[in-house]
């Protein structure tokens, strides 16, 4: 199901070879080439860093570039093969975490990519823009706060304008703040989480819909939290349950229009969200220890899922949620 075999360590030289292969005409793409390494097998327990991690915290929203260890978004490993050639994608939260992994993978699969992020995340975003452009496709960085409905509508308009169309929306940006007690969640905190995680996807998808032709794909990032909430994520977890749910209602609504809607449900993934207030101090240090694989997932390990849900080969998948939970959580 998940295309993890595509993820192999490669050198920069191999990457440019792969990029060259990608630039070839579509006919050549159907023949497998040896330019991109494939297959192999690696122990999933030891493939990436394990807890304990150094105690760390960053002011919201946090930067991937300042995390220790640095998350892997597939920067040096993801090899594309033209699966999204000619596609035009908007990814919210594309500067870090799963959104960044999706942005890198989409670009290497041949899609033009617009990424949204907060102005404070510019440093991470710049790296992503450079990686997208290095793949030989168009990058459209569009910073702004998703809590503002007018900005959400402008974001879609600008993405359509800069990419000259839109056929893939990845609603991925999320706000998560660990608070032990409901008594300590202020109205403002609650509103922040709801606006970012529930209202923004509504505003963005609604604005994008007139531009989405049959064959388009909407992908939302939900979470294991939708099914098995942590006690300190009362507000965040319910937004992820809502996301899981809207994936299913919209799939029913938009199926007849030829637009697919799917979700991705990550388990504990090593992203800035966690070290900037999303997880308790102790959870950061022992992050992923509770998963049967004994470590957190890396964003790169989800890249193939986003590609799969976006690509045309996945044409019968709609209203579904694909997971990467490390053995814990659902679906």
């Amino acid at each position: 199901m998940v295309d993890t075999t595509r993820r192999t360590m490669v050198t920069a030289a191999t990457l440019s070879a792969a990029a060259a292969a990608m630039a070839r005409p579509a006919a050549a793409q159907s023949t497998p080439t040896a330019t991109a390494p494939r297959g192999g097998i690696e122990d999933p327990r030891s493939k990436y860093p394990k807890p304990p991690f150094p105690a760390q915290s960053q002011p919201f929203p946090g930067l991937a570039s300042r995390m220790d260890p640095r998350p892997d978004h597939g920067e040096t490993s993801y090899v594309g093969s033209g699966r999204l050639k000619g596609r035009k994608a908007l990814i919210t939260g594309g500067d870090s975490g799963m959104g960044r992994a999706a942005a890198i993978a989409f670009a290497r699969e041949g899609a033009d990519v617009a990424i949204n992020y907060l102005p404070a995340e510019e440093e991470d975003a710049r790296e992503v823009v450079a990686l997208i452009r290095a793949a030989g496709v168009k990058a459209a960085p569009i910073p702004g706060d998703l809590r503002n409905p007018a900005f959400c509508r402008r974001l879609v308009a600008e993405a359509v304008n800069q990419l000259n169309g839109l056929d893939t929306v990845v609603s991925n940006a999320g706000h998560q703040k660990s608070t032990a007690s409901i008594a300590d969640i202020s109205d403002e905190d609650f509103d922040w989480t709801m606006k970012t995680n529930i209202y923004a996807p509504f505003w963005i998808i609604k604005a994008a819909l007139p531009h989405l032709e049959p064959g388009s794909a909407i992908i939302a990032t939900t979470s294991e939290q939708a099914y098995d909430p942590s006690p300190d994520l009362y507000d965040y977890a319910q937004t992820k349950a809502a996301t899981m749910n809207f994936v299913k209602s919209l799939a029913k609504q938009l199926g007849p229009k030829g637009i697919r809607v799917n979700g991705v449900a990550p388990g504990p993934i090593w992203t800035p969200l966690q070290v900037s207030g999303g997880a308790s101090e102790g959870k950061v240090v022992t992050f992923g220890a509770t998963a049967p694989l004994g470590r957190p997932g890396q964003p790169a390990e989800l890249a193939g899922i986003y590609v799969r849900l976006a690509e045309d080969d996945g044409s019968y998948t709609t209203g579904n949620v694909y997971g990467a939970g490390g053995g814990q959580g659902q679906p």
Partner: protein
Amino acid sequence: MATIWKRGGWVAGALAVGFVTAAAAQAPTGTPIPPAAKDFASDAVQASQYEIVAAQVALAQSQTSSVRAFAEEMIADHTRAQEAMTKAAIASGLPAPTLAMNSDEAHLVAALQGVRGADFDKLYARQQVLAHSQALAVEQSYASAGADGNLRQAAQGDVPMIQHHLEMAKTLADTRG
């Protein structure tokens, strides 16, 4: 919190790992039945892994000096215990036990990760009393009647440590509870 007892070292636990024999059924009430060598080594190493991970959460999350001192001791002692048990297992020709928690232990850690301040100290102390009570039962049973000599010796080394930890945990629970 009750989950920890689901895999207790007593008869219920023995049932779960499939050691029930006619003889076992006749054992005096309350006498733990020692598990097979491989399962004992694995259980003991997992229990220590939970202790280490829980203590790491405590060090990141608690400001209380008695809790932190306890956690430091747990990491030091259980790392040593894990090493000794692994050595014993290898000496007996068993595979080295995996340094992982079982799912009940993972749930306990997840619960710790979700609380802070005084609530954290209270939950940690309570978990420690339960976890060490359980570990003591398992280790005592193997120390007295386990089949494998190397593991029995390791268990005999663990018992006084766990007794000491249990006493400390009880004191902690009394003061933080």
